[in-house]
């Protein structure tokens, strides 16, 4: 099956995984080799579980699957190595452009700050920075949209789905309790 739309070959929908049929994308070979190395490491680790002790040992399926991984990843490398490198794309432009790196960094920063700062401040910071970078609009618009959508998400998930996020420095529980007492007499909650 050919890709229907050449513009979307980088897999921007579940329906169309990326990759090029007859060419090698930048970094593809390195990724394929990395997969061989990873499979090898996992196979070794799987062997360490129980060795060749028994067909029903806990290591049997892990060893079989990692062996399959190793073989298939080697086949992929052999195939990829033969393909000509595409001339239309570069690693810095099409695979890892600055915006992707920035967002990866933002996500990691989010993960690190979440436990200390708490959900609301971290998310507010994240949304403001992210929407500012992507939207390239004024600060007023950015802050308004970010805080508005954060409030909406918080209301839905904290109240409707009762998801507890780390509260961090914001006294969330007290805040909700305050409102509850305000609308006292509602035994549903």
């Amino acid at each position, binding site marked *: 099956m050919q890709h229907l739309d050449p513009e979307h070959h980088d897999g921007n929908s579940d329906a169309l995984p990326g990759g090029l049929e007859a060419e090698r994308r930048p970094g593809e070979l390195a*990724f394929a080799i990395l997969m061989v190395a990873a499979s090898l490491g996992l196979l070794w680790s799987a062997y360490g579980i129980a060795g060749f002790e028994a*067909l029903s040992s806990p290591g049997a399926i892990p060893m079989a699957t990692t062996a399959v991984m190793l073989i298939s*990843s080697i086949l*992929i490398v052999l195939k990829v190595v033969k393909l000509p490198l595409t001339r239309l794309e570069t690693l810095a432009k099409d695979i890892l452009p600055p915006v992707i790196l920035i967002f990866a960094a933002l996500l990691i920063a989010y993960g690190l700050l979440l436990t200390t700062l708490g959900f609301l401040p971290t998310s507010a910071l994240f949304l403001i920075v992210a929407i500012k970078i992507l939207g390239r609009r004024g600060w007023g618009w950015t802050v308004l949209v970010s805080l508005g959508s954060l409030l909406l998400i918080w209301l839905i998930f904290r109240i409707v789905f009762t998801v507890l996020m780390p509260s961090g420095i914001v006294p969330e529980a007290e805040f909700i309790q305050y409102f509850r007492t305000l609308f006292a007499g509602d035994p549903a909650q």
Partner: protein
Amino acid sequence: MTALMDFLTVFTQPQLLLLVGLGTFAGVYVGAIPGLSVTMAVSILISFTFSWDVYPAISLMIGIYMGGVYGGSRTAILLNIPGAPSAIATALDGYPMALRGEAGTAIGVTTVMSFIGGFIGIGVLALAAPLVSDFALTFQPRDYMLLAILGILLVGSLSQGSLVKGIFAGALGIAIGAVGRDPLTFAERFTFDFQILEGGISFIAVMIGMFGVSEALGQLHHVDKDAVRQKISRIVPSLATVRKHLPLSLQTSSIGVVIGALPGTGGDIAALMAYDHAKRVTKKPSRPFGEGAMEGLVAPETANNAAVGGAFIPMMTLGIPGDAVTAIMIGALFIHGLNPGPMLMIDQPDMFWFIVGCLVMANVFMLIFGLTGIKLFTKIVEMPRSVLIPLIMLLSIVGAYAVNNSITDVYWMLGFGVFGYFMRHYGYPLGPVILGVILSRLLDDNWRRAIISEREDLGRFFEGIVTSPLSLVLFVSVILIFVSQTPIWAKAKTRVFGRKGEQQ
């Protein structure tokens, strides 16, 4: 009689009815907004509905699923970007119709046909699942094992891209699913002596990472692309149009149910096969196929919605998912303490009939929301990606955290998100990974049970396969998939079918 009562549960409780409606509504839009997908929505929602009762949670997710399968066709028609794998074939004739300014007609026909297909699928599910589950009780552990392998292989080989990459992805998924302490012997597997790995990797984290964050990262490439504006006018199709295409839609619905019911094949394959079928049987299409033929729209849309009902058959009776979305639905049932398989049908038939009821309701809601609110729809689809992408990322993080209240899951999720981003770019399908993760336990347990019952003797194991008709069929199918990817097969095929065999 109790079955009828369980079936009607959803209709008698306004709260559940509301949730199905809400889910369907959300599903239609999630499927229709480029950058959001059903797989993404359901995997994020699993974690949010975690603390709910089973019934409301299932109602919401079934609504999203049904709505999403249908909603994917919208972007296929309007933007030529299938919102879900099952809408790939819809784009072939839907987009040309939109280019001619017939987007409204296309959406209307799609909606009605999805509705018809959906009903046929559900009907077959209700009739066939009890029979299949009785039959499934006779399955040996080795049959389950073979079915699991077959499912992963089919997803890998039939999705776009190469089979080798699909196999790699499936094996990777099984390996990820094996991380942690082995439930039978308590031996550590792939833990590398890290305590953090002993409990295994949460499959929700893997799902959200692969379908949420990696998709959002991929979308960053297209931030500046404007949404396409389309003037959509009349969308309710005339009765004559519907009647004209009814015979075709019945045929393609049956294709959809059958394909959907095979483990490992879901709506996407069904839609493509139905499209092929329509091409063959339609003598006089309204326009040539590929240039906006109505038949080219009717066929895939009836088939993929019929496949929803079909896909629930192996999922509910065997615990084997048909595609990535059903794999996630199985994950959802797991989370709520249900174990899809023949025993579920016997122990908790109420759950089965409740799900059937939800599907029926979701199908009706889909028709209603599909034919109304077109103004609102165009507004929502134009939501700027600069806001959408950060929100998806935020929701993914919240979702990954919410299941176990653990920050480790968030790191896993982010890790798999980045990994999935690379996999997408280099053409590795993500569906088999999820299928592998979900089926890992089932595969492992059944292999060990099978081989222990044969006293660790491989010879006896294969003898068992050869002497049991069911095992033999499954085994031969597995072998056939491998053979079908080798040059020998391609040669034989071109000889038998001529040039037509190229499509696969």
